[in-house]
């Protein structure tokens, strides 16, 4: 039964990813510019270019190219990057690992902080400290990550000299060496997420506090803190699960800006590289794997939600 349900969800997820893959493929084919030219440089002759295009399979009908690519992707053969002539899968997976690392570090910062602030603000809704938190969060909201990033580098790397300005992780670096490199990008991304998580949590807490079961708990003679901890939090934080999933998706490629500011070797930076070099096949792989991760994260969030909230019923959408 559960298997059947999972199977159906995965099928649905597959359908979404399939639609996405088609969209990605079509957009990529619309990109102007010429891989062969990028690859051979401006000095290459026409014949060489044509030969290369044929070698890369760029002269076949679109549908054939699409199906070929898709089949390869599913079977784990993601192809050879047009530009660097290196196999795509290890490259993308390595970058993905780095991005996940950064995303993890970000969530590690953003979740406790955002939830903490949100709970505090929700608990004290309408009071001065709530207003203070709201105003601070709002000011943070206003700053795009490319601005905070630059300001943080200036402060922490140049003025205080506490943290490195850059994060080109060495392959053999230990976690202890990586940690300081992760700090600034993670803080920058945190600032983007923080307000979002905190506001959601605050709304959740306020919403739950107005529920009748809170009165029941109060009439049991429980202290406010116990009520918050045992009753309100669990329910108020349920929606946050979804946020984590969405943030994870956002972080994977939404880190484009942050990774570029800090020269962090993640998937976001690889993406800009692929766009810049018109490395369509690399670009497609990055976009599609992002979609897959996004979709899987959402599925996991849904399942988590259903597990944690016994009320959720599953069935045909």
């Amino acid at each position, binding site marked *: 039964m559960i298997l059947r349900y999972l199977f159906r969800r995965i099928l649905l997820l597959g359908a979404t990813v399939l639609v996405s893959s088609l969209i990605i493929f079509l957009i990529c084919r619309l990109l*102007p*510019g*010429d891989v062969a*030219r*990028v*690859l*051979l*440089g*401006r*000095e*290459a*002759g026409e*014949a*060489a270019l044509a*030969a290369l295009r044929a070698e890369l399979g760029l002269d076949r009908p679109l549908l054939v190219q699409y199906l070929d690519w898709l089949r390869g992707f599913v079977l784990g053969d993601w192809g050879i*990057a047009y*530009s*660097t*002539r*290196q196999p795509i899968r290890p*490259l993308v997976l*390595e970058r993905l690992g780095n991005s996940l690392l950064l995303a993890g570090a970000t969530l590690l910062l953003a979740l406790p902080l955002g939830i903490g602030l949100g709970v505090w603000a929700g608990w004290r809704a309408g009071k001065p400290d709530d207003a203070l938190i709201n105003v601070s969060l709002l000011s943070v909201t206003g700053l795009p990550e490319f601005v905070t990033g630059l300001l943080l*580098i200036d402060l922490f*790397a*140049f003025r205080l*000299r506490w943290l*490195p*300005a*850059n994060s*080109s992780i*060495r*392959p053999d670096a230990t976690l202890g060496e990586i940690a300081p490199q992760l700090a600034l990008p993670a803080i920058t991304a945190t600032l983007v997420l923080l307000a979002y998580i905190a506001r959601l949590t605050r709304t959740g807490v306020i919403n739950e506090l107005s529920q009748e079961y809170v009165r029941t708990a109060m009439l049991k003679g429980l202290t406010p803190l116990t009520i918050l901890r045992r009753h309100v939090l669990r329910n108020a934080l349920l929606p946050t699960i979804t946020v984590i999933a969405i943030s994870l998706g956002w972080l994977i490629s939404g880190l484009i800006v942050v990774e*570029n*500011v*800090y*020269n962090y*070797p993640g998937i976001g*930076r*690889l993406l*800009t*590289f692929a*766009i*810049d*070099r*018109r490395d369509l096949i690399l670009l497609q792989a990055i976009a599609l794997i992002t979609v897959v991760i996004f979709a899987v994260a959402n599925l996991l969030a849904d399942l988590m939600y259903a597990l944690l909230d016994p009320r959720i019923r599953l069935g045909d959408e």
Partner: protein
Amino acid sequence: ACGSATPSPEPTAAPAPTQSGPTGRLRVASEIPVQLDPAFASSDAEILILNHVYDYLVDIDAGNNVIPRLAREWTMSDDGLRYRLTLADGVYFHDGSPLTAADVVWTFNRLRDRSLQLPTADLYANIADITADGENAVVFTLTTPNPFFLYDLSDNHALVLRAGVTNPATAFNGTGPFKVVEYRTENRIDLAAHQAYFQAGKPAIANLEIIFFADQAAAVDALRGGQVDLVLRMPTPLFQTLQQTAGIVTVQTPTNGFDLVRLRADRTPGNQPDVIRALKLATDRQAIFRQVKAGLGAVGRDSPIGPLFSAYYSEETPIPPRDPAAARALLAAAGYPNGLKLDLHVPDSGDRPDLAVVLKEQWAEAGIDINVIVEPESVYYGDNGWLEVDLGITGWGSRPVPQFYLDVMLVSGAVWNESHFSDAEFDALAATARTTLDEAERVRAYREIQRILIERGPIIIPYFFAQLSAHREGLRGYVAKAFPGRTDLAVIAV
């Protein structure tokens, strides 16, 4: 660079090699390399890596002189058709095999093999034959004399490979001062000293890390933050910033590189001389130089023969002072009484977008309405768009001799004649300069060429770049090169 030459002495700037073998780690910021097959590599980033993994037969020093590298010495036959190069002793590939003349023959045959369609095929079309003369000498036979042949041998692509290598883009089996330890696409490449390197005292460092940056601002941040030791190239404002930063040494080197603003001359509106003159009259090169380059480098005079080619450079023909009103009148005369509307295509690299913006503003006064289209280089050069568009800005890197620019950029039908300039008088002068062995005649030809380009060349060269680089204090032996990819990192000590 003519006649039979004796090798110039080693550059004196090179540091005394450390006695105890290479030590220390050098971290260099670079743009992202794409293509690491020497036959295709062209960007700074790509050459920078390959230049340390492989070796050229001959190299060019900071003063544009040909110096020995794998070739210990060379002779040219009197008719200028045969070059014999003797290889250095004790040269080994990273896999331990010794370098032989066969490797050199194989390398250059590959580069000139028409069927492989490599970009160097044209460059070496003049070679009739390459033969090994024993284990360590190679003989090149030309079909016509070429006074610049040694420069050609030092072409960026002409790195010597092991004969018969099948995967030159990934094998990294060179004779160069560093071995590749690990290459991470779009991220970094880690190299280690090649202990058996044939040049004494090189490399001075044990480890070389080249870290790739998509964004030069980030690279400069890394330098300021201490994450890299050397940045070889950067836009002007960042250089100015570093000039004021403690602990950083800035180095600027004048070069022959320039940004070329060009209008297609083979169709309207560029086929009307008045339009070209109007554009030139509407341009204030001094102002551009100050705004875009902050006075670093040199003001241009619409010809690729820049002030560094001191023997050839001439200020004989004056550049008419900026006069927007006159330009407007010329346009009216050319049939554009209400001004001219043009798209200006610009690649998004370097200071070029700023140049476009400044031009737009200056030309607006003359009634020329520019629509700036900034494109990634991949789009600008892709599909040969840069050769097609009417109005564009193209960056041209520094070359040791001016003839190159004329031959590929301006003579009728040249491969990258993006302005589609075709002028019989110019072509004749260029041909003279190309082949003559008489230096005075060449000087005369170049002088005339500069006059023609100023008067009617469909190009504007507002400035020549300075090569802007910087490193942290404590780095010894760094010598800036006009083409930063050819910097010799093996002589640097930390």
